[in-house]
């Protein structure tokens, strides 16, 4: 709940407690400990503590692979999340096989179409970052189709997919399409997470870039500034996303000054 609200330090503290409680359980329930470690990994990723997140996921994976019974649903999720850490760290080539493995395991399980779609969207982001735009676009479009069957239940996944697809179109120069998708993603995130959540700021940052590329400098600077303020408040001034967004804002202000009136 704290993570969803954007209260990451509080979420981290609670999840660390959950891990300790699961570690102390007698007998040890490997699946329960792995679930707690996965939660900790998620919040550590949000806080850009990538090494800690990676270690938590790796430990969860080892527990699940050694535990009796089938835990392929969680193993697929851990591979998905390990791929996510490499995506966040900029190690896209390392992330791709992890994301593909998670997707393959989940597909073999059958059944949970939304989880498969989430794996597809996560892989799409990794492929997009490696300039494999065609496969990424297809994965995003297919995933979106699945999520849109139940839009209310999947609002978070729809928003991240719209954000990814919008960013992909922006890179290709399809700015009108990009703006429409990113605008929808911002609205969805504001509705579901509240207007001051870090995820809202991520999409505002991308929308700011699209406005700038379309020559709408005033709208771009306002949008970037709103994103910077939210990121400073939620993730802190030294978080890599805050720094990158501030740089985008500064460049936009400079370019706006140089642009013909």
């Amino acid at each position, binding site marked *: *709940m704290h*993570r*969803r609200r954007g209260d990451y330090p509080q979420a981290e503290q609670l999840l660390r407690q959950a891990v300790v409680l699961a570690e102390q359980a007698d*007998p040890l*329930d490997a*699946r*329960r400990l792995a*679930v707690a470690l*996965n*939660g900790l*990994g*998620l919040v550590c*990723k949000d806080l850009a503590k990538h090494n800690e997140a990676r270690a938590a996921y790796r430990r969860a994976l080892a527990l699940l692979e050694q535990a009796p019974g089938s835990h392929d649903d*969680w193993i697929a*999720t851990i591979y*998905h*999340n390990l*791929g*996510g*850490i490499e*995506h*966040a760290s900029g190690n896209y080539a390392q992330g791709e096989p992890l994301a593909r493995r998670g997707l393959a395991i989940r597909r073999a399980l059958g059944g949970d179409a939304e*989880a498969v779609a*989430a*794996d597809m*969207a*996560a892989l*799409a*982001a*990794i492929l*997009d*970052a490696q300039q494999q735009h065609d496969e990424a676009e297809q994965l995003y479009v297919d995933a979106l189709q699945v999520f849109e069957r139940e839009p209310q239940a999947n609002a*978070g*996944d729809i928003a*991240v997919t719209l*954000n*990814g697809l919008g*960013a*992909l179109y*922006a*890179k290709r120069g399809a700015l009108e399409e990009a703006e429409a998708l990113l605008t929808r993603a911002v609205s969805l995130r504001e509705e579901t997470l509240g207007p001051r959540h870090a*995820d809202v700021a*991520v*999409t505002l*940052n*991308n929308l700011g*870039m699209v406005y*700038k590329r379309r020559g709408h400098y005033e709208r771009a600077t306002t949008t970037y500034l709103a994103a910077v303020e939210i990121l400073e408040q939620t993730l802190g001034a030294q978080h890599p*996303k805050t720094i*990158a967004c501030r*740089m*985008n804002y500064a*460049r*936009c202000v400079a370019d706006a000054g140089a642009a013909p009136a």
Partner: protein
Amino acid sequence: MPTQPEIVRIELTPQQKDQLKAKTGRDAEAIELTVTELEERIAPGRTWNHNDTFLVD
């Protein structure tokens, strides 16, 4: 010695009983979950991360 997993019993409301009957055709007074199953179901949000694309100029 390993102990049995702790079971949590959740009594259903009349409305929930009706919903269950309508969807499955079965009558039930309550559902029982292990603590682990319960934690997985009440865990907020998704269990997977989102690879959000963040554009840098």
